[in-house]
């Protein structure tokens, strides 16, 4: 598998990462997430075993813009809350998600592994996050991709309110045609239901949703 193909698969994995919902929630909590954006379609499910560990499954499908060939990746994910700082008015987290799975493309199936580190800081009015993700598939091939988000809430939402966030997401994926992609988006959530709607600088609609139960 060539470098470019590796990079494409890696890109799929990176962009398909969680829509900033935390990969570890409360004990015995299950989260289902579905994403539709410039990179394709993702669905994942995670179950939190302990305050620090969650397990899940991840699937992603994409049609490559250039080659018009379909790619997909599938695999279990193991999520770890490495460290959390709870403050009076905010929270900071560092997470790791790692997986060993398979990548499919051009009629072939290959083994794949990926890992990511996500750091976030949020208050009731400010949100920031940064993620870096690395991928290994089939042969020795390493790639690094990055994603950052900043956002603010125009009002402090109460427990019974619909929360609104205005955010900007910046992706840096050197292997893609559009290396830097900026996506302004609106996040709405009510209790454990979350929806994100955005439009990227390379003219793709983003529509993500999460549901936790």
């Amino acid at each position: 598998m060539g470098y470019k193909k590796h990079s494409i698969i890696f890109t799929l994995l990176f962009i398909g990462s969680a829509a900033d919902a935390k990969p570890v929630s409360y004990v015995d909590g299950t989260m289902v997430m579905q994403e539709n954006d410039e990179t394709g379609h993702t669905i994942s499910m995670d179950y939190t075993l302990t305050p620090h560990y969650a397990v899940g499954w991840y699937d992603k499908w994409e049609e490559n813009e250039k080659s018009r060939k379909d790619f997909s990746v599938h695999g279990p994910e193991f999520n770890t809350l490495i460290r959390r700082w709870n403050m009076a008015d905010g929270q900071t987290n560092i997470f790791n998600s790692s997986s060993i799975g398979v990548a499919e493309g051009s009629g072939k199936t290959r083994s794949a592994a990926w890992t990511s580190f996500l750091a976030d800081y949020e208050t009731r009015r400010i949100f920031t996050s940064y993620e870096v993700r690395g991928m290994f598939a089939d042969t020795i091939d390493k790639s690094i991709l990055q994603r950052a988000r900043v956002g603010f809430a125009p009002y402090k939402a109460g427990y019974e309110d619909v929360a609104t966030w205005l955010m900007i997401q910046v992706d840096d994926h050197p292997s893609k045609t559009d290396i830097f992609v900026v996506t302004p988006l609106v996040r709405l959530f009510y209790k454990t239901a979350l929806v994100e709607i955005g439009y990227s600088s390379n003219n793709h609609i983003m529509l993500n949703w999460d549901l936790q139960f």
Partner: protein
Amino acid sequence: MKKIFIFSAMMIAISSTAYAGTITATVNGLVCAFCATGIEKTFKKQPAVEHIKVDLENKLVTINTKPRQNLDDNTITQLLTDAGYSVTAITREK
């Protein structure tokens, strides 16, 4: 006789209600309803819990226990920690 019976039943009911306690925990890290729902769901699994309310503005979790039932401080702290938060104070009232 009937009035005495009704009065006695009312007194027993009032007395039982009086055993229900209100516990308030002050919590750090409480920033959104998405996360706070985890607290609600965690505590609702506890047989002793009658009602729970999360106050994001004041960072308070208020727990009402069922009559003649209780949750000790260690259990409350553990449940909140499992939900991802840090407890800074617990107060009780009857």
